[in-house]
């Protein structure tokens, strides 16, 4: 088991290094002189450019720059943003908790609604509910996230004004209520996918022999479905939800824009369009780490759940 974990960890290291170096390469090798941006008003002054090149190590070969960056990174220094003149660690440090909180709520929505919908759909296969779910999930997947967000804003923010259904439409200042619309928007596609996945795996599992055995033994439908069927069906579903968590942190740009959510997605977007390399690299590293850690956790849980792996 330990060997398994260690082996997975080791496999992830080249991925991490590979991804970061690739990004570094892309950002620095290609046309565009950062001193033009850093110099601002003074950029036409060659003395100013020389000082800046010195400060940011821009004349060193790429692997030296990468090495310097990695060394500083290991000390927790993500560098300073070109655009905002603040430490990247602070910019991300302010934004990351908000992204995490929203992602957690969204996962909750996804897990609860997705699984329930999927189970009912599988148990009542080909019924009206099943068809409804199939169509609804397909439509949900097809709706652009930002459009959904805008519609929800209008419906629950403006049209519902004065009613008990009114919800905050932007920002984080209304406590738990601020989370509702953004979380629903963010979770929409993932919920649909989870529902479909749950349905499929449940159907798979229900056809298995041990289910028929349990049924034949005389167990009630409920016990069969929930005790035997669901637990096994949930394994791939849970791992999928877990993997979604990694995606949610990095992929919330649209939701954050529509709902003015102060998360990392928005910072990354602004950094990319403003050529703010330190922030781009810093946040990508965070996404990578989140993704790797989540994948590792999922793999390890597989190790626990699947005895074959345990004994490798």
């Amino acid at each position, binding site marked *: 088991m330990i060997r398994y974990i260690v082996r997975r960890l080791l496999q992830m290291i080249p991925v991490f290094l590979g991804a970061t170096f690739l990004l570094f390469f892309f950002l620095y090798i290609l046309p565009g002189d950062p001193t033009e941006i850093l110099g601002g008003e003074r950029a036409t002054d060659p*003395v100013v450019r020389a000082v*800046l090149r010195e400060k940011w190590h821009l004349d060193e070969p790429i692997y030296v720059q990468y090495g310097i960056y990695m060394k500083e990174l290991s000390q927790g220094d993500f560098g300073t943003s070109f655009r905002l003149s603040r430490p990247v660690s602070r910019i991300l440090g302010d934004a990351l908790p908000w992204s995490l909180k929203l992602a957690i709520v969204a996962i909750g929505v996804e897990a609860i609604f997705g699984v329930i919908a999927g189970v009912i759909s599988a148990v009542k296969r080909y019924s009206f509910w099943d068809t409804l779910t199939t169509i609804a999930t397909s439509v949900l997947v097809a709706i652009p996230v930002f459009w959904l967000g805008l519609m929800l804003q209008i419906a629950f923010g403006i049209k519902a004004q004065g009613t008990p259904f009114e919800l905050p*439409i932007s920002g984080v200042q209304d406590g738990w209520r601020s989370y509702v619309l953004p979380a629903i928007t963010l979770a929409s596609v993932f919920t649909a996918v989870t529902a479909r996945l749950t349905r499929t795996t449940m159907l798979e599992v229900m056809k298995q022999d041990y289910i028929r055995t349990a049924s034949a033994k005389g167990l009630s439908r409920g016990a069969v479905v929930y005790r035997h069927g669901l637990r096994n069906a949930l394994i791939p579903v849970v791992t999928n939800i877990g993997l979604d968590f990694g995606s949610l942190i990095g992929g919330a740009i649209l939701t954050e824009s529509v709902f003015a959510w102060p998360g990392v997605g928005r910072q990354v977007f602004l950094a990319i369009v403003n050529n703010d390399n330190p922030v781009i690299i810093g946040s990508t590293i965070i996404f990578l780490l989140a993704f790797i850690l989540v994948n590792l956790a999922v793999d390890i849980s597989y190790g626990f759940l699947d005895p074959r792996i345990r004994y490798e």
Partner: protein
Amino acid sequence: MRTRLRFGFAGLLLTVALLATACPKTATTTPPPPTTDKAKGGILRLELSEPAQLDPAQSDDSEETVVTRNIFEGLVTYDSKTAATLPGVALKWSANADSTVWTFNLRKDATFSNGEKVTAESFIQGWNRATAPPTGEEDTSPIGYHLAGVEGYKTHFGEGDKTPPTVGDGKGLSGLKAVDPYTLQVTLSSPDPDFAIKTGHTVAYPLPSQAAIDAQKPSFSEFPIGNGQFMLKGPEPWKHDQEIRAIPNPTYKGGREPSVLEEVVWTIFPDFDTMYLQWVKGNLDYIRVPPAKTEEAQTTYKAKLLTVPTTVLTYVGTTIKKPPFNNKKVRQAFSMAIDRAAIIKAVFNDTQVVAQGIQPPVMPGFRKEGPCKYCRFDPVAAKKLLAESGVKLTEPLVLAFNTGAGHEDWVQAVKDQLQTNLGVSVTLEPVTGFSKNFIPRLRAGKVNGLFRLGWGMDYPTPQNFLAPLFGTAGIGHDNHTEYSNPAFDNLLTEAATKPNVADRIKLYQQAEDLVLEDMPIIPMWFRISYRLANIDKFGGLGVDPFDDPSIATVFLKKTAA
């Protein structure tokens, strides 16, 4: 000031009072109106887009100056309604005969919000910092050039000097001198009768001691300490991407009345649409109206609508150093081929007014008859001019503009009009990132053809619309067309020698005429500011000369309290 035109600068009614106060004489204040209907308290809720930082020496963006203007106060301030120059920290000022040496007498009771006193040294410290060359730790100021007239600016800049300058090398602006703790003497390298007016600009604010700056948590640029009417509300006034909070500064002594508000909150939005929804829900007290919502503002919210002409000019610059725009007739032809009025109606819902000259409608010396003869829409004349120029336009030209500021629609209209009226093919070139991308590209000469820019008033003098944009000294800063005309420069220099405002204005007008004949830029329109405000709840809400909410005079109405 250069503007992004999403949120811009502007001016208001500049009256003769302004002209009078521009003279190098002692200024007088007008007493404030009776305050019997003011209630104490009230939380004023405003909107803002996330600023990059709040350090006044780095602020060249309206999102930042909206805040810093209330946190700091310079030698002079500008009247919220008339833009007249009024005493700020300086009680009176005077200049010598040829306006090269200025003396400012400061009040003795002005303090920063941390208790430090504001002295002449505070200004010297601030101005030196704003004009300092780049160092290992601090960034250069993008607006330091406003103080270029002060003696010592060039050498401090490091021009011609090959060794990188270092911080604290003692080479401050040599023209600054603290005659005594409360008397500041400024020596200029050339005459400038308008100099006192310029000292109200954010670049010229006083700063507390370096120790205080360094000690600020999380950083001075996120939590500046100023001497203004308001102070940021610690310990964490600026929650990034969320809000900025300020409260009246209890120790404030300066050119304005202390504020009676309880608090001011700027909620930060990533775009106009979300912000507008919050207005509809009643969560904001004063907003800029998104152009798309103009009609709604004029109907549904008629009682809360404020419309004010601003000084914000949109123009299309041309690369006059390269063909085909090195030919004057081509530039003139292009200008006449554009139907500005139609674009203003369709795209802007009439929130702009056609530019008939360089100077905005509210500037002294503005000529209503419209001196720009090439700004009229006349496709026949345009074609004729183009033919006369003898230039054949075979390759498509570029029209560059910065994204995310709402320019996408009108540039498409311009492209279409140039195609229809002149047969010219134009390619649109969107560039993301205004100061970090668009401006550097312009400066590096990477744009070939047309480019969209804006300009708004920095301080209320016509010279502000002439020298930075068209003067030879402006090349490398805001003169992006690199227009250089000795006759033009001479007119401005001559104007600087005239102590009488009316004489100066005549010369400024002649300079403007030169530019309007040469057309290095194509003036498009001036913005009309549309604002929605809860004027039933708050009094004193208006638009200040820089198109910002005039918080300085806002109070809660007794009826609303």
